[in-house]
């Protein structure tokens, strides 16, 4: 049985999605995200693309409660207003941060263990670990290695595995392909496909527009903190659509 076949994949009750309504984020009075709405259903991957400074990462950090925000972030109908990141994780939202940010001096196994700190159940730990190690067999082989000694692609797998250990319903990824070789990017997105198929809601911020549009069920284009366009997978090869998306 593959991981994709296993509907549980660490999830207690598949079917919880994310809804964002009127999300606004500002830095020192300068708006970075200007009231965006988006929804990611369970078993769906949604992309967020746009030029540098468009507000993509701020959107994810706003959802996580890592920066001050206004608007509503709903998981299973419940508003996450005012919750700090550690409590947002406990509501079933996990972030794979930009630049991976694995704990370089800790072992691979310890990084994964830390990912499980926010689990709401204690019983599913071994099962979740097994799922992650099946999804990324490399992590099993390098369990005792210092995370900082892994290659970029391997660190990205570890960062995703660590996020999955918290048993999220919603997985947010900030530029998972950043700085990776094409092969490593393929590995990461194949894993994301499995995660989506297992019923998780996936929201991925990316710079690789064509790749993201083709992979995601829907992709939003963000410009100056606002969603300006919604694209479908079939738009991926339409150069004029992509040009419009980035240059208006």
């Amino acid at each position, binding site marked *: 049985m593959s991981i994709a076949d296993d509907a549980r994949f660490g999830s207690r009750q598949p079917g919880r999605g994310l809804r964002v309504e009127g999300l606004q984020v500002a830095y020192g009075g300068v708006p970075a995200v200007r009231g965006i709405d988006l929804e990611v259903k369970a078993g769906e991957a949604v992309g967020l693309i746009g030029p540098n400074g468009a507000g993509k990462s701020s959107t994810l950090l706003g959802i996580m409660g*890592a920066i001050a925000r206004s608007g509503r972030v709903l998981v299973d109908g419940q508003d996450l207003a005012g919750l700090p990141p550690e409590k947002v994780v406990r509501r079933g939202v996990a972030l794979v*941060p930009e630049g991976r*940010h694995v*704990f*370089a*001096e800790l072992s691979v196994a310890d990084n994964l263990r830390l990912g499980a700190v*926010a689990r709401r159940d204690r019983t599913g730990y071994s099962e979740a670990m097994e799922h992650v190690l099946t999804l990324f067999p490399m992590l099993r082989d390098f369990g005792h290695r210092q995370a900082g000694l892994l290659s*970029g692609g391997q660190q990205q797998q570890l960062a995703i595995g660590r996020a999955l250990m918290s048993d999220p319903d919603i997985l947010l990824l900030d530029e998972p392909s950043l*700085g990776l070789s094409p092969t490593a990017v393929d590995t990461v997105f194949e894993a994301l496909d499995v995660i989506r198929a297992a019923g998780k809601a996936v929201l991925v911020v990316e710079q690789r527009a064509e790749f993201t549009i083709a992979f995601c069920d829907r992709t939003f284009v963000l410009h100056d903190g606002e969603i300006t366009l919604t694209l479908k997978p079939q738009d991926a090869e339409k150069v004029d659509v992509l040009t419009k998306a980035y240059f208006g």
Partner: protein
Amino acid sequence: MTGQLIQSLVDALSAGATLGLAALSIGLVFGVIRLANFAQAEIITASAYCLIFTWELGWFIAVPLSILVAVAMSLLMEFTVFSRMRSANPATLLIASFGLSFLLQRVYELMFSNNVRTAPVASGLAQTVEFAGVRIQLLSVATIVIAGLLLLGLHLFLTRTSMGLQLKAAAADFRTARLIGIPAGRVIALSFALSGILAAAVAFVLTVQSGAVGPTFGVQITILALVGAVIGGIDKISGSLAGGFLVGFVTSMLATWLPQEMSNFKDAYVFVLVIGVLLFRPSGLLIKGRGVART
């Protein structure tokens, strides 16, 4: 000559161990919330006062009580002052800790007067024993043993327990630790509590050494501990420990081996060392550079 060398080495190891613990107590908190807590001095002082005032009740009461006082004071500082300044930058936090330090010194003056308070705390350890022709102070050996046991305990805690692992992760990258669900408040409180335990150990050693405690009792060692932490790399738990040890060891050796007219300036030599480190290794001797991520 060999006897004197061994004796000075044991003393230097002991001084290094004490300062290493003091620097570690500062580095533990700095790693998590970027606070170089100068008021650590007053935690040491409070713990030392407790030893002085309760020693006649028996060590089995005085020692646990002094640890309790240090941990309670450390946590009280966090909950009443520093937790309200979470978004402040490290410089502001440092200045706040200076303010808190001076305030507490005045409070100690009001409570216990400017005069030192004395008690024969563990006076048995102040004795000197002769072993194979070498005269060694029992306190030096006890200090090395205490520091060794504490470091072993801390190492096991940080590597074998979930809470320890969370603390290590938070000290390495606090923002990411929160983003993966590590509870910030709990980890910060833990770092303050552990820092308090280390401060109590330092207070014990210093109180046995001097037998007298005044309002500024912990200031001198805290300044040197901060210096040590910066030399080793305050950003890293092991850096603080090693830096503190180095400063204590070198200061002690200089005091022993420099000619009398020069040894009065031993602290000055240490600060020359600090200037050198800040010029050539500003992140600290043990910090290799940030981020080992490869692509």
